[in-house]
């Protein structure tokens, strides 16, 4: 495989607090971002996601470890070269962070000015970018005259001004409504597919992961606890923290209040089966229940798509003679079906 565009090796970041205590925001993280992919960094608040991303464009310097971007070890660069490196890494923000003192065009032109691009070239590039994000006619507007979605599109145009091969997005859609989120996500997807820009998105929204991510890194307490293909991590998380997080965003098990109502209506035992895209999964489930002489009633759940593959969960009420449900559970597990009993 080609050289990763970003490589973190044993990276830690500690912040000293007043009073002598320290927070380890990032704790011994090793992580590769592959060229051309969209990597989602997910995890609960305070997990260290923003810090990891800010290490990638050297807005923060690691306490230990190395950060390599496009083959360049950022931890060894003097400030002047760091600035040049940052010119080749785009970044967008939750609050957009547009310059209020500049027009839309002025915002997009800023990184080009910083990079020393001559006026004529700059103007052409700004027009090209605004056209790409669909805001050419708003070039002379001021940021406060734009909607949130439009602001983020300006943010994206500004971040892409210098043609960076890498774009970092810190909660870029968290301040937007669902519809606008979808719009911005599909723009980011175009940035990835059409322009070949590698994107790292921080998010806590399942929709964002679902719509654009190829791979996902799950963070907890400053550590990356699991990295992998989005489908693999969501359908079969290997670690407890990843499982916990995946569960909370997928809602693959009935919530406590739902469970309460289900129990009320359905006196039998409740079994939740994870539905993956294995072709004969339904057949195996049916055979296990029928073979054990258990009758089932579908009471909760659903199936949808992740990365164009089937994923979901179904909760059954299982009833049958003494010992039959246990036998069905054993048969399901023997057949490789992921099943949990709701207790």
């Amino acid at each position, binding site marked *: 495989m080609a050289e990763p565009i970003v490589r973190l090796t044993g990276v830690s970041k500690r912040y000293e607090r007043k009073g002598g205590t320290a927070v380890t925001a990032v704790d011994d993280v090793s992580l590769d971002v592959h060229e051309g992919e969209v990597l989602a960094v997910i995890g609960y608040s305070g997990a260290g996601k923003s810090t990891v991303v800010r290490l990638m464009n050297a807005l923060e310097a690691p306490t230990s470890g190395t950060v390599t971007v496009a083959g360049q070890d950022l931890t060894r660069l003097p400030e002047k070269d760091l600035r040049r490196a940052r010119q080749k890494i*785009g970044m967008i923000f939750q609050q957009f962070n*547009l*310059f209020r003192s500049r027009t839309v065009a002025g915002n997009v032109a800023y990184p080009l000015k*910083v990079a020393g691009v001559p006026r004529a070239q700059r103007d052409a590039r700004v027009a090209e970018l605004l056209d790409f994000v669909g805001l050419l006619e708003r070039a002379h507007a001021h940021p406060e005259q734009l909607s949130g979605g439009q602001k983020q599109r300006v943010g994206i145009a500004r971040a892409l001004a210098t043609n960076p091969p890498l774009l970092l997005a810190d909660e870029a859609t968290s301040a937007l409504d669902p519809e606008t989120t979808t719009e911005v996500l599909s723009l980011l997807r175009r940035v990835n597919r059409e322009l070949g820009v590698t994107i790292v998105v921080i998010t806590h929204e399942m929709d964002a992961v679902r719509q654009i991510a190829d791979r996902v890194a799950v963070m907890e307490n400053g550590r990356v606890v699991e990295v992998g293909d989005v489908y693999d991590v969501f359908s079969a998380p290997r670690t407890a923290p990843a499982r916990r997080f995946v569960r909370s965003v997928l809602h693959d098990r009935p919530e406590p209040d739902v469970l309460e109502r289900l129990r009320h209506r359905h006196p039998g035992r409740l079994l939740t089966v994870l539905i993956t895209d294995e072709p004969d999964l339904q057949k195996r489930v049916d055979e296990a229940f029928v073979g054990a002489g258990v009758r089932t009633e579908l009471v909760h759940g659903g199936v949808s798509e992740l990365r164009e593959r089937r994923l979901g969960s179904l909760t059954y009420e299982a009833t049958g003679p003494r010992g039959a449900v246990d036998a069905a559970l054993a048969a399901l597990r023997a057949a490789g079906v992921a099943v949990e009993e709701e207790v």
Partner: protein
Amino acid sequence: MEGFLDTVDVYRTAIWQTLFMALVSLVASGLLGLALGIALYATRPGNLLSNRLVFGVLGVLVNIVRPIPFVIFLAAIGPLQVAAIGTTIGTNAVTFAISLAAAFAVSRIVEQSLVNVDPGVVEAARAAGASRLRILFGVVLPEGLGPLVLGYTFIFVGIVDMTAQAGLVGGGGLGQYAITYGSQRYDWGVVYVSVATIIVIVQVGQFVGNRIARGVLRR
């Protein structure tokens, strides 16, 4: 009103002196205070040119000088006036004193305006690879310009106040005119004309400042 009619020429000169003192002081203290305020903002711990020592020294200096009442400051600054202007009386000496006194007040207003600039915007400029000075002058200052102009307007009122106080030490201007030809001769017409003129000057300054600020803020 005879007193006023007899002294119209003095009155006219006094207006010009007041305007001269106020505007020159505004520009001089504006520039000096701007430099000081930028230094205070930039050297603040965690900011672009974070420097605890410089920030601490400047902070103490400003905190000591700023609260000194102007008339006392005026007296205390005598030797400096002699060194710089050659005298402690007259419009020039007073203008020098006002410029200096106001600069310290301006510095805090500048610092406040800049501190209130959204740090996210600084972050965006940093992420674009801009240098610290470029961020300071190309981003922070323009982003803080609206409040800055309002702050200067506020200072202008204070400066006009100082020009009037300067009348007590022979600084010239409407303050001295009101005292010499007004209150000391019990000619209240002269006093009220002076007061009205000062009010007009302040109002015009306020109006212009608000206008400019609104233009900058586009509101």
